[in-house]
């Protein structure tokens, strides 16, 4: 179980014996002063922001930064509780925060809404206790002013959240193409991301004539607090930054641009329950954000996502449509930003975001702007480590190809919980649900088509068995045809005998090996005529020897052994050793089938060791 935590923030005071501390690990978080361990830094803001920012908005900024710091510093872990049946995924956070607008934050409505939206985002249990901020905490500490005295455009429709990825770029390009003024807000915990976002913004500004401003924000916490990568509350922080800027220019709200497949983030496997699939821009999240920020700014305020019914390939196509394809090379989609060391390559090629990006780019026909060399490992043919990298590729492709195969009704039924949960935030739920189903059907087809083309492209390597076995294409197509046919046939014999003997000998076990051979011969004879009993005779030493069965075309011999009593173990081992020598000397392939209905063999591994070291011999156990 993950130890519950109490975060004391903004210099709030709690007595040592206070019951709030009970059963919780206590951590102090502060954005200012000598003990500060959470950093907030807005770049390029107008000087007016330092003068007119409402106290409630500064509180919001600090609360969001503390929630994010707590989230990123509390490891969810890989432990299991409740007799190894419950995954330790959810955490329990209590915050005591000193605020300027105590009356507002202490209201039950605000507190409940905050806890509910954070709970939906993260699956964690949140509770907040607010205290009055006693000492002044100047907001200027968070701001790095640009050249402007005041913002250039008040009252615009939306502030745009600019992550530096493809979707937010496509949204910005679309808005700029319509002649809208752009106020873009970015967040980054690491410097490399900020510099990329800045470069992308400069390229965007060079491509369109509309006025645009970029406000990069750094928010991070001390490494010593710990490191958790899931960061499910990041979109709360991100939206809070957007809301703060939007309020300062009285914009109508905040806009995310995120394709609908990622926004809904349907589970790609049955293990992916609740917020294990992030809900960063889930329609219900955005609805809750809108409701919450309306309370905060006390006016009509909307958080929306115009791309919710589009696939990633469709959003990327907008870039080409509006003559901004060349900007693709400056975007970064990888989830592992800053985690792999490469100054020239921005994409790991193994995470789901890289898979999504590459498939969408290829589908949109824009690979000229996204060279292979930008990926540390090729998405389709590169090696994948066991664990996340391999499992992600398997689950991603299986999920998408199943979507492609399923009918609309099947998709709606299988994902009724998730599609329903997304549709409930809209007015026309039935139409919206149908649109979500259609969206996922298109996504499935896109993935299917791109992978089909990749298979065609690499068909030579596939047939020759030269594909990296852990690569996505090898996992999709399998290279089973490369397994020698005699091994496949041996496995089929084992399968037949395994099923047949369990039924034929369920009540009465054969009295001896010849009787067992008769039963097996009956089972095998009913299914295949490739096997010949007690044939061929082979010369060995001065005598002749013959196997129990043979498959001439495959050069395969089959030997059956019956372990009836413990005392049979020794002689059986000796017989196998003799067979290994006899058949090995005749260069034959051998499948040993060991019938051990009384579980007398203590260790299969040990028993089969003399056989498993030989490439042309196999051993199967039937019980």
């Amino acid at each position, binding site marked *: 179980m993950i130890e519950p935590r109490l975060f004391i923030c903004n210099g709030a005071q709690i007595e040592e014996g206070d019951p709030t501390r009970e059963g919780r690990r206590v951590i102090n978080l502060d954005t200012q002063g000598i003990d500060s361990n959470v950093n907030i830094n807005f770049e390029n803001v107008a000087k007016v922001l330092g003068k007119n920012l409402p106290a409630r908005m500064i509180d919001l900024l600090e609360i969001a930064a503390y929630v994010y710091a707590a989230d990123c510093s509390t490891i969810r872990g*890989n432990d299991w509780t*409740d*007799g*190894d*049946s*419950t995954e330790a995924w959810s955490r329990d956070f209590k915050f005591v925060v000193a605020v300027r607008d105590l009356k507002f934050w202490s209201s039950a409505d605000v507190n409940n809404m905050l806890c509910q939206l954070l*709970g939906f985002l993260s699956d964690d249990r949140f509770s907040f206790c607010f205290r009055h901020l006693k000492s002044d905490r100047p907001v200027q500490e968070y701001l790095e002013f640009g050249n402007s005295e005041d913002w250039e455009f008040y009252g615009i429709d939306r502030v745009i959240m600019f*992550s530096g*990825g493809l979707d937010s770029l496509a949204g910005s390009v679309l808005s700029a193409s319509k002649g809208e003024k752009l106020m873009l807000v970015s967040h980054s915990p690491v410097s490399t991301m900020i510099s990329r976002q800045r470069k992308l913004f400069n390229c965007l500004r060079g491509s369109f004539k509309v006025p645009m401003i970029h406000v990069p924000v750094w928010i991070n916490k001390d490494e010593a607090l710990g490191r958790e990568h899931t960061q499910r509350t990041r979109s709360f922080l991100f939206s809070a930054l957007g809301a703060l800027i939007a309020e300062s220019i009285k914009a109508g709200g905040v806009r995310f641009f*995120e394709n609908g497949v990622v926004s809904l983030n349907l589970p790609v*496997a*049955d*293990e*992916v*329950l*609740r917020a294990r*699939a*992030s809900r*960063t821009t889930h329609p219900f999240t955005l609805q809750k954000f809108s409701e919450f920020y309306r309370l905060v700014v006390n006016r009509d305020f909307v958080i929306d996502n115009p791309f919710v019914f589009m696939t990633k390939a469709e959003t990327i196509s907008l870039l080409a449509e509006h003559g901004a394809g060349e900007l693709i090379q400056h975007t970064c989609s990888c*989830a592992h930003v800053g985690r792999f060391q490469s100054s020239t390559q921005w994409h790991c090629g193994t995470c*789901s*975001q890289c898979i999504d990006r590459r498939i969408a780019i290829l589908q949109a026909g824009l690979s000229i702007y996204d060279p292979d060399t930008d990926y540390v490992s090729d998405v389709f043919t590169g090696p994948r480590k066991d664990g996340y990298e*391999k*499992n992600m590729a398997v*689950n991603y*492709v*299986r999920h998408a*190809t199943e979507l492609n195969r399923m009918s609309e*009704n099947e998709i*709606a*039924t299988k994902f*009724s*919980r998730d599609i*329903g*949960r997304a*549709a*409930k935030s809209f007015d026309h739920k*039935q139409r919206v*649900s149908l649109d979500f189903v259609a969206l996922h059907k298109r996504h499935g087809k896109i993935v299917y088509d791109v992978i089909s083309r990749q298979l065609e492209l690499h068909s030579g390597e596939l047939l020759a068995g030269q594909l990296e*076995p852990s690569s996505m294409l*090898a*996992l*999709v197509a*399998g290279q089973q045809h490369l397994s020698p046919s005699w*091994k*496949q046939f041996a*496995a089929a014999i*084992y*399968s037949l005998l*395994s*099923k047949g003997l*369990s039924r034929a000998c369920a009540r009465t076990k054969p009295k001896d090996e010849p009787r067992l051979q008769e039963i097996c011969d009956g089972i095998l004879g009913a299914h295949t005529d490739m096997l010949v009993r007690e044939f061929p005779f082979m010369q060995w030493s001065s005598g002749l020897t013959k196997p129990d069965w043979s498959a001439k075309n495959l050069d395969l011999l089959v030997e059956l052994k019956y372990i009836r009593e413990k005392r049979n173990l020794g002689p059986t081992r000796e017989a196998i050793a003799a067979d290994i020598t006899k058949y090995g000397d005749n260069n034959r392939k051998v499948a040993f089938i060991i019938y051990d209905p009384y579980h007398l063999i203590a260790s*299969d*591994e040990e028993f*089969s060791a003399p*056989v*498993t070291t030989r490439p042309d011999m*196999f*051993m*199967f156990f039937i019980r």
Partner: protein
Amino acid sequence: MGHTRLGYLPTSRRWRQVVAALSGEGREASSEHQLLDEIDLIAISTLEAAQAGVESAINDVGFRYSFYLLTQLVLAARETKWEKRLAELGVNPSETNSIFELSIEIQRLVDDYVLSHGQSSDIGEMAQQAMGESICALAGPKSIALFGTSEEELQSAIRALSTKKGFSDLGQRFFGRFIFHFLNFYLSRGTAAQVGTSRIYQVGSLSKFNEILQTHCDQTAKIVRNFCGEWYSKTEYKKGIDEHNTSRFLAVALKKLQSEMKRQRVNL
């Protein structure tokens, strides 16, 4: 920005046995056919390793409320003023123009209930999924459309489930899907890792494995089929179905499912 967290199975002896059953460990060569033949063994091993999870399901708020709502939904369909009864349950009558819309409303009720009674849980999510699939399955080839149907047709289709036999069908479907999602919550962490081996040699083989596991679970749930119908019929007639007696019923039904799987193991 989308991120999916994939996890690992526990490393205790019982879970290692589950992984061994999946991988065919200890056997030199093993095929996809053998894996599919052994699905019942794998299911039982998983259920036994996750025994405590089954027990905790009994007290899960989302699990209990999902099943309780199914009973109330079919009972509402018996009423001449079923819209009124649906509204009493919290369903917005203007949002029930199709099975899928009704399913969205029922899911919303469970979400709201769970939120007001604590925190969501993995078990509750599995139950909600099973509930959604059970309702949407009404739209089979011989039944009505999933999207777009008349209110009368919808009520009539749900009323058909309000009989003893109808609720037996519904109960079997619910428990079959619940136990499938329960088992695959664990197994899916192990099966993806097996892709590329002789047991699950390609991505498509994993789809096949999941389909066969689901069929196995649907069939296993036959053991609670009549029990569902009888409990529903008797309880509603005698004292009315409430959350309390639903909870007791679920505990017994889960035990029956476990016993059935154990019985299958004896027969293996």
